[in-house]
């Protein structure tokens, strides 16, 4: 499974881990990961430490997650990006929408 999810101990944070290529092929799995997460979740972490690549449809999926999590009030952190992934997020200026670390 290229996408794994787990909860923080208090259950309020949903951590989505993506492995390998984060592109259109993971679309459905990524949606499933957050859509059935229940109402208790108040913030999200997208962990890209195992992601090797990210394309524009992945950026679109991150926007979908942001919309699902409340749009402008969404609390989403994208973490552990490799240099290539980080570069793509930077060119698109996604740090204006997400916390990237």
């Amino acid at each position, binding site marked *: 499974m290229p996408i794994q999810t787990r909860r923080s101990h208090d259950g309020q944070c949903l951590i989505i881990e993506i492995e390998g290529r984060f592109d259109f092929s993971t679309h459905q799995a990524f949606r499933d990961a957050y859509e059935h997460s229940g109402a208790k979740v108040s913030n999200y972490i997208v962990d890209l430490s195992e992601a090797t690549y990210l394309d524009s449809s992945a950026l*679109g*999926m991150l926007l979908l997650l942001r*919309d699902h999590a409340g749009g402008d009030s969404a609390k989403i952190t994208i973490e552990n990006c490799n240099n290539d992934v980080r570069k793509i997020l930077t060119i*698109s200026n996604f740090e204006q929408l997400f916390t990237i670390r």
Partner: protein
Amino acid sequence: MDESAAENVPLNILVADDSDSDRLILKALLKRLGHQVLDAANGHEAVLHFQEGAPDIVLLDALMPSMDGMEAARQIKRLAGERFVPVIFVTSLSEPEDLAGCLEAGGDGFLSKPYNRLMIKAKINAFNRMRLMHQALSDQRDLTNERNRQLLEEQHVARRVFDNVAHTGCLDAANIRYHASPLSIFSGDVLFASPRPAGGMLIFAGDFTGHGLPAAIGAMPIAESFYGMASKGFDGSDILREINQKLVRILPKDMFCCGVMVEVDFAHNQLGVWNGGLPDIWLIRSNMEQYALPSRHLPLGILSADQFNAEMEAVRSQPGDRLLLMTDGVLECANREGQLFGEQGVRNAIESTSAGSHPFDVLMGSIKQFTGQQKFGDDLTLCCVEMVEETGQATLTEEVGLSTLAGPSQWHCDYEIRDNTLGEFNPLPLLLHICMEVPGLRRKSGEIYTLLSELYNNALEHGVLRLPSDWKYTPAGFDRYYSERTKRLNRVSGHYIRFSFQHDLMPSGGRLRVTCEDSGQGFDFQNHPVLQSIDVAQSGPRYGGRGLALLMRLTESIQFHGEGNQVEVVYDWFF
């Protein structure tokens, strides 16, 4: 297909055997199974019957006089072409070499003599299943091919419709070089260029997420907004705001458009640049100095109108400078080993550009060399615009001939913008629109726009914002000028700019009188060098010499009133 039903359908079977008795036995057996039978006594006859009767399955004896089974099989397979007609050898041969020879000649299987009714029935059914499967596959392939052909045809028609909306504008101007695939619209890339009413150009390059029809549909309203607004005198920021808002409204949440807007102002030797999500724009100066202008904004179609920042970065320029813009496709070109051309590839190419070579050719050459291919994919868009002297540039085609509808000829109009609106709103398209109602002025839209924008920009930048125009003549001053401009635009409360228009009919045409008044301190117009003599055209405390000289050239008269904060120009047009 229902298999049992298929098996019960009578088949047309060709039997070739030189032994009359064997042939009769086989024929009788097959008939009893419900099939129709064509029979031949040698290979030659078998081939003839095959051509006339088009049987579904062929049973061949291997050894026959006047063309043996092997040769008959070869000819029958050749005649069948793409149609799969099972050829089964009926034989008493048992040597592996002989049997292999039958298969090599095109045979699909064997039936050994003497005949067994059960085996014949099973073999015929098995080969019929294979035949039907082959048939279904080729039908599906034909259908797929046909659908694909239809799709391509539809894309070509859609492309023609798109071309009518997104006509190429002034992409063919002498100072623009570009590469864009004719079908790039279906890969999500767009490239537009339009001349502006007062001279200069606007260029937009965009790259949609996704491709195919959704990208093409998203591109349509962008083209309409871009060309419609550019020709009406809106500036790059206005158009970006409009495009962003439109895309936010129409696109699904996960779709957006990375884009670059470039405002090219030949008259003032200035570039305005906005980059939201596309690779670095490269500025290559005529002296070979190179600068990257990176993406500083989110792509279009994500942020709501109140969060969207459409501010363009002002870049000082001079004739011979070149600006290179590109979509992701350039960086994503891959060589045979799967390595990407990447940012480094672009950087290397640009750094290797020498004085005699064109950066567009150098970069295209580098990509070709890297990929080892002469042709590019659909999603590679590259455009290079060169700063040139203003004369000889493409301008909006002036609508020739007076409209049959007589527009307003005797009218007066006052328009004032105040306070924060000064920092947020560009009134020029609206003012131009009012003047364009007069058919005689419509033919002169470029001149009117120039006149209005010179008056407005002077009133705003030098009157209200009190920015000294001589700052713009040094590189450091230029940056200071624009950062101060942005800062001071936030402190305009209490200020105003007032336009007053008066239009009258004259025996030979019409006269437009425009007065522009601002709340600034004015200037000493009595002693302004340009007002003494047009030849002295460099700096001035308030009016850049160039703008004032331009106004003097365009109008019948120019007068300053009050403290110099009120300018009145008279513009005449003729039938």
